């Protein structure tokens, strides 16, 4: 079975982003619900499901407070026998990891597909972790498409596999696939599953030790079956060269496209195995290795396949890739990187060697965060050595000049916990800067900790009433609920404020911040004004890209 035969008769052709192809695949596979937290480059999966004017049915669900709540909601849909999609960026899977890893121990009932978009090259992320590693850790199946058409087809197939093997199935995208457009042929949609609970009931879903031990044994015993499936799936394709010996190339994901782009320039066409399934197709890998004494692995992300080869191959083979330095260990693949790895000379181009100044992204003109940072700088002037812990969103750009206001950005929600720790270590004033959506995502539990010890710190919630960075999605709760949440977890009302973030109010904002920096104990200041593009988007106006 090849990717083409996965699909039934074609019913339509569309030009789709990789993210959109994935969403369409899930829709046509008959999902009843989809859940996500926005994060580049995965955001357009949910955006596309929510787009106005989308004909036909719209699945239930939508944006969630964070990736873990999104995952758990999808798992509940699966428990009820229906199909669900959950989508996130690579670091989002860290947040959802508890749910993800344990959901691979239960016996998934309705198809459960986890769409994860990795960001090699870190265009919009703090790291370039490889989702294949976490998928293997969880013993889940992972499929890796290499173009938009495969993204559509493999997403549909992922639901079938999930139900057949009782496992969550990951579909791994990378930035350049998620955010590239190409024509996709769609096939006839499938109906939704009826609601029907798992007949195995609690035996499959209650992970008390007795059940968990049995289910885990079954899961481990399933591995060989999955490998046999991978080898026969037709998703992994082997083309042997006319003569044995010589180079064998293994590609994964969009590595295939870069390889095919340059292969014709090689004097002898190498044998080629393209890998799209994890667990890996062991028999195909061994067949290639028997045929070719030298192997080169071209994969996006970590040297995942390259390392597995070391113990999959009974014979000693020379395996090249990111670990051996033939391909740089970090950064995105490109046809140029692959050329060099294959020993092809660089192409000539017009010369221009003068170093140019970089142009990093900036806060929009008129962004409310500009006013908040201006006020924070005023308030912090002439204070001793304190700390301003930052978080993840547009406002992270406040770390750059001219604001230079933030001293950290590590993971979603980290600012509050880190400011609390820094305060415990003796830094004063300790300030946490966190956006409204990030606060709801994972800031609230840390605030509870700070309340519990009345930590000597100030939390500044930069409330732009939107998830600005990813295009102005509406946060899980409206901004009017932030103060009740802050008070509800026990922050002293005398030290909880809501202020307007506006250029004409910077001095007044600074006064409030100053007063709370003087206070020995916990304070929370919510600085509110809506993100400009989000405002336009919500009014249905055009947003300049």
């Amino acid at each position, binding site marked *: 079975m090849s990717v083409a035969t996965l699909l039934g008769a074609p019913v339509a052709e569309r030009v789709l982003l990789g993210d959109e192809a994935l969403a369409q695949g899930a829709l046509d596979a008959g999902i009843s619900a989809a859940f996500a937290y926005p994060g*580049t480059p995965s*955001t357009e999966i949910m955006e596309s499901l929510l787009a106005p004017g989308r004909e036909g049915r719209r699945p239930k669900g939508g944006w969630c407070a964070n990736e873990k709540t999104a995952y758990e909601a999808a798992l509940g849909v699966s428990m009820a026998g229906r199909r669900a999609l959950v989508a996130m960026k690579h670091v989002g899977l860290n947040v959802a990891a508890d749910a993800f890893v344990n959901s691979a121990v239960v016996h998934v009932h309705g198809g459960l597909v986890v769409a994860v978009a990795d960001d090699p090259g870190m265009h919009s992320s703090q790291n370039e972790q490889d989702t294949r590693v976490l998928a293997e850790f969880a013993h889940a199946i992972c499929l890796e498409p290499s173009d938009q058409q495969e993204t559509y087809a493999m997403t549909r197939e992922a639901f079938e596999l999930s139900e057949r093997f009782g496992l969550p199935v990951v579909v791994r995208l990378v930035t350049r696939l998620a955010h*590239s457009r190409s024509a996709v042929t769609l096939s006839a949609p499938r109906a939704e599953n009826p609601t029907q609970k798992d007949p195995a009931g609690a035996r499959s879903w209650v992970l008390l030790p007795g059940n968990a031990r049995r289910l885990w044994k079954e899961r481990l015993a399933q591995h060989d079956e999955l490998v046999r499936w991978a080898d026969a799936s037709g998703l992994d394709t082997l083309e042997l060269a006319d003569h044995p010996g010589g180079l064998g190339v293994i590609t994964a994901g969009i590595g295939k*496209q*870069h390889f095919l782009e340059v292969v014709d320039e090689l004097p002898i066409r190498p044998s080629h195995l393209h890998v799209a399934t994890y667990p890996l197709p062991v028999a195909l890998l061994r067949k290639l290795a028997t045929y070719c004494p030298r192997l080169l692995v071209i994969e996006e992300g970590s040297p995942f396949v390259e390392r597995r080869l070391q113990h999959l191959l009974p014979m000693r083979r020379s395996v090249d890739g990111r670990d051996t330095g033939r391909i740089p260990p970090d950064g995105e693949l490109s046809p140029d990187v692959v050329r060099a790895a294959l020993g092809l000379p660089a192409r000539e181009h*017009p010369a221009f060697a003068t170093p140019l*100044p970089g142009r*990093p*992204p900036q806060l929009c003109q008129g962004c409310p965060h500009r006013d908040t940072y201006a006020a924070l700088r005023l308030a912090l002037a002439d204070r001793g050595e304190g700390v301003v812990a930052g978080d993840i969103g547009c406002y992270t750009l406040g770390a750059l000049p001219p604001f230079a206001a933030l001293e950290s950005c590590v993971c979603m929600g980290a600012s509050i916990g880190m400011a609390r720790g820094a305060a415990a270590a003796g830094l004063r004033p300790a300030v946490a800067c966190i956006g409204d959506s990030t606060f709801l995502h994972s800031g609230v539990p840390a605030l509870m900790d700070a309340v519990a010890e009345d930590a000597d710190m100030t939390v500044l919630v930069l409330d732009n009433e939107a998830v600005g960075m990813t295009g102005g999605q509406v946060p899980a709760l409206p901004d009017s609920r932030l103060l009740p949440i802050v008070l509800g977890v026990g922050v002293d009302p005398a030290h909880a404020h809501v202020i307007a973030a506006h250029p004409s109010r910077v001095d007044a904002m600074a006064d409030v911040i100053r007063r709370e920096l003087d206070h020995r104990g916990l304070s929370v200041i919510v600085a509110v004004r809506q993100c400009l593009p989000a405002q336009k988007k919500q009014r249905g106006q055009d947003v300049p*890209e």
Partner: protein
Amino acid sequence: MRIDIVLAGVGGQGVLSVAAVLAEAARREGFCVQQTELHGMSQRGGAVQAFLRIADAPVHSDFVSHGTADLVLALEPLEALRQVAYLKPGGLLLTAADPVENIPDHPGREQVLAWIATLPRTAVVEAAELAREAGAPRALNTVMVGAASGVLPLRVEILRACLCEAFAAKGERVVQQNLAAFEAGRRAAACAPA
């Protein structure tokens, strides 16, 4: 036939709209089209780059390789220079003349245009001025679509139709302004030394 294009500019200038209009026109001409875009960080006034590959048979990678671009089409001259390594020998660098000086160390218009003048095949368009003259000061990107039209195998009627559709939602006035900007770009490129 294959035409590889690298598009460049500054977030907010409408680089992705240019890519979308050219891609749609190419599709209507019956070509296979691959188009990349980057969302997120790159949109906030930072450097933006997109690849567009137009061919009469499917191409593999979404990337344009170094030394293979037929055209670098830039809405800002410093961003144009950032893409020189993509040009093939004899490829054209076509850019708006107007710098976006939103960084403290921008070398300035004169220096950047002087650097561009050292390259073998370039055309610089006074796009901001042309957009203003056309009564569409925000349509610098559409001026550059017009400027590029002369070197692409895309019929002018088809490009016009794609522009009309792209701006239809904003009303007839905006559509007419953009058509005027498109014509201004076309005329400018016709006299530019490339």
